[in-house]
């Protein structure tokens, strides 16, 4: 089981790095999917099979499908890949990269200083999760449902084609590039 954790951790980090350096949106999405599957395997090893399944169903299923539909609707062509190549010269990413490296080293130092403990991988069953979810965290469930409703209404409002692009407020002020 240890080997499964280490291998999938390596796959997750590698696939995630491939996401942020991807030029093509669909290639980035496929790498993100690999990363999510690896993290889901880690969840399974850590004794959270319910969350592993949810990760695949919601992240790997629903959210990825949303992304893919948007990429299809935007109809991005090879021009975007060239544009991405122009947008990512080394001098742009080297600064934030070094700063983030400093942050992760600090974070690692803070984590490693704490006393270590082992994760036995004892399984927390979906039954226990459900009891906690609808018992102690019932208010959280209500908040989540309200959040989803707000997301639904917001996405519907933003998604409707109310203003034609050439008549939008930006175009009327003559600033549309």
């Amino acid at each position, binding site marked *: 089981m240890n080997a499964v954790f280490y291998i999938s951790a390596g796959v997750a980090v590698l696939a995630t790095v491939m996401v942020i350096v991807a030029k093509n949106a669909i290639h980035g999405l496929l790498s*993100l999917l690999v990363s999510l599957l690896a993290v889901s395997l880690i969840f399974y090893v850590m*004794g959270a099979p319910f969350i592993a399944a949810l990760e695949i169903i919601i992240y790997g299923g629903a959210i990825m499908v949303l992304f893919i539909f948007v990429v299809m609707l935007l109809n991005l062509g090879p021009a975007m890949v060239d544009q991405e190549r122009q947008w990512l010269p080394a001098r742009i990413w080297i600064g934030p990269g070094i700063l983030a490296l400093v942050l*992760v080293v600090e974070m690692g130092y803070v*984590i490693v200083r*704490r006393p270590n403990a*082992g994760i036995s991988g004892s399984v927390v069953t979906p039954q226990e999760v459900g009891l906690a979810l609808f018992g102690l965290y019932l208010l959280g469930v209500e908040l*989540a449902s309200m959040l989803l409703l707000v997301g639904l209404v917001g*996405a519907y409002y933003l998604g409707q084609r109310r203003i034609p692009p050439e008549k939008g407020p930006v175009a009327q002020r003559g600033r549309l590039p």
Partner: protein
Amino acid sequence: MATIPIHYGLLLAALLFVVGLVGVLVRRNILFILMSIEIMLNAAGLAFVVGGARWGRADGQVMVIIILTVAAAEVAVGLALVLRFHGWFKSLDADRASEMRG
């Protein structure tokens, strides 16, 4: 089952989070910025699962379910905004949206 040190799980979560952070900072394509935010939310969920597994409690997994909800709502609104953005500016460059001069 063999034990996994809790440090490694937390370090993996921190590493994934920082990779997502670099993505948000570096990319100009708004679609990739959204993907990087998803990576960061996922890393936070991983940290919660590691914490929950350490003590064998279900609370960590409950928090991951709430994070999943937040991610789903965020991505729905965010992608609708991306569509509007592309309709207005004919581009996915996040720097185009500097109308407010913030």
